[in-house]
């Protein structure tokens, strides 16, 4: 018979197929297991008090700090979140992140230069967060800010 295969060939193919299935049985869960933590976590957003709006100087970004409890993997710990609050008129507030949009270094407001300065690659941002010089691809990230009951509240991922 021309289209039949030998017993030996058949068995070796079956062995290969079963072996392949077993290897896949390890490999597929292994990939899911290793890449699992790379999934985007769906964090909730919450309004957190920062302090009195009176502390914000008109026209100058002012630094506020708050603590949030975050869980990464199996560790839950408090993290400090820094927010620069900026207002021109004392009524409309913007919150600016202090994380440089280039590679994630922390920026700080330098009073006499009227700019946020990033020490890593000498980037500067204006008081509204727009890129003034250097490599950052976009303005500083912003937070929603509202005033309620004489308190500045910031909308954060918790």
């Amino acid at each position, binding site marked *: 018979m021309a289209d039949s295969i030998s017993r030996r060939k058949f068995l070796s193919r079956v062995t290969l197929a079963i072996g392949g299935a077993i290897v896949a049985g390890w490999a*597929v*869960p*292994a990939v899911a*297991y*290793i890449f*699992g*933590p790379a999934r985007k976590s769906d964090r909730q957003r919450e309004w957190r008090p920062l302090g009195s709006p009176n502390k914000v100087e008109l026209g100058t970004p002012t630094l506020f700090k708050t603590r949030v409890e975050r869980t990464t*993997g*199996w*560790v839950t710990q408090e993290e400090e979140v820094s927010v620069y609050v900026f207002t021109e008129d004392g009524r409309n507030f913007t919150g600016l992140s202090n994380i440089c949009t280039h590679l994630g270094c922390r920026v700080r407001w330098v009073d006499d230069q009227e700019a946020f300065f990033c020490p890593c690659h000498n980037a500067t941002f204006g008081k509204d967060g727009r890129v003034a010089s250097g490599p950052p691809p976009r303005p500083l990230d912003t937070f929603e800010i509202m005033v309620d009951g004489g308190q500045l509240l910031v909308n954060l991922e918790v």
Partner: protein
Amino acid sequence: MHEPIDQPASTTTWLDERTGSRGIYEAIFLRKIPKINWLFTLGSATLFVLVNQFVTDILLTVYYVPSVQDAYDTVIYIDSTLPMGWLVRGLHHWGATAMVALVILHMLRVIFHGAYKYPREITWVTGVLLLLLTFAFGFTGYLLPWDQEAYWATTVGTRILEVVPFFGDFLLRIARGGDELSAVTLSRFFGIHVWILPALTLLLVAVHLFLVVRIGISAPPKKED
């Protein structure tokens, strides 16, 4: 050029010319064996579970942290948060039990067939050492989840050493790395479980398998044997 032109060079030929892979393949998989039965697959089954233990152990150490603060939390994280983590840990957990059962059955088969006799004494001795290593794996691995079951099982298990006359106390301190079960014990058991035992096992398995292939397996004994 002494290569015949009409013969297309296949990948296996290419590889064989450079590594001798065909000879190795034939020596391992196409070797002559006597007429045997399913009991002779127990060694291969053990080897398969051993491979499973290595694969899943490597995966577990990606997240497991052997410290008293983190050990239990990382095990729970693997079990309940990571995708397929329950499967990886389950395979390792049940594989460990299967391993102990299989090595014992494998050994019983060898005993009942008298397969430990000349010329297979070294194979037998390495096999017995591998049996002891399997127990050591089981004992050290049991502590690593650092839950109540693990803690007390190891407390009791190490305490058995204390009944050895004269230097029982010394042995107990070696096993625990101090007077009590502690962070030191956990760290030592982890190091032994994932580095020392696997290294010894690989070495002994290599010798064991080399001898099985080189000497060949024994036929089941006949009436007149």
